[in-house]
């Protein structure tokens, strides 16, 4: 499952290599302190995201964000928040091993997602994201462009989600 798959596929699916992820919880009144140590302005509306360098933050709820970065930057992120602990209470939890990321790319990517995601995908603008469900599985869905999505899924649910995507993708390719 580590390589791109299937011969007849409408949407290009791939499983990204692992990378660092963090769950950040902080009082909305203290967001600016977190933004400062992170070097980017944390968005405060669920669904919005902000990025700088390798860092990407997505607002999931009024006091909850998910942060993504790369391996080279992980220690810097952890050190920055460690320095913040004594002054501003918050929680930064490494969740890198909890999830894997599937990318969906192609003009029919939204159609493929819609086979198991109840969201109105036209309401998810490029450059935003959200927590939602795929089939019965909780996911974080990011839309990078009209035709590019990412699914963050708990690793134990990956085979289930992957199998559903693969099957629906074959049906799309066959014109069903």
């Amino acid at each position, binding site marked *: 499952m580590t390589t791109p798959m299937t011969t007849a596929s409408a949407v290009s699916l791939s499983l990204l290599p692992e990378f660092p992820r963090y769950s950040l919880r902080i009082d909305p009144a203290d967001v600016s302190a977190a933004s400062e140590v992170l070097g980017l302005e944390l968005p405060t509306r669920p*669904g919005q995201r902000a990025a700088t360098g390798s860092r990407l933050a997505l607002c*999931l*709820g*009024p006091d*909850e964000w998910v942060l993504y970065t790369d391996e080279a930057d992980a220690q810097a992120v952890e050190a920055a928040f460690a320095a913040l602990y004594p002054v501003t209470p918050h929680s930064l939890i490494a969740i890198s091993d909890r999830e894997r990321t599937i990318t969906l790319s192609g003009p029919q990517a939204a159609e493929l997602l819609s086979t198991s995601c*109840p*969201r109105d995908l036209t*309401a998810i603008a490029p450059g935003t994201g959200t*927590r939602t*469900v795929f089939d019965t599985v909780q996911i974080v869905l990011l839309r990078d462009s009209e035709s590019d999505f990412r699914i963050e899924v708990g690793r134990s649910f990956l085979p289930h989600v992957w199998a559903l995507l693969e099957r629906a993708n074959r049906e799309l390719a066959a014109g069903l």
Partner: protein
Amino acid sequence: MLLIHCPYCEATLPELEFTYAGEAHIARPADPSTMSDEQWRDFLFIRTNARGPHFERWRHAHGCGRFFNAVRDTVSDKFLLTYKAGEPKPESLPE
């Protein structure tokens, strides 16, 4: 599928992202030890069981994660109103 307006996400979203969490505006007694068994029973188990508008708690579990309150008509299953947790019980309801 029901569509539910989350007052935190400010969006109307599919029911599958939400979980029901019982009747709203039931305050836990400040000092349970002073209550009779009957009063405690009522607090724990006795609910309005409304026919019509019902004030109830929901949680946007697979979204922003917040609890909020909703008024749902138990006859038509229509959501009349949703509002943030902690806000006062609305006095009047939209038609």
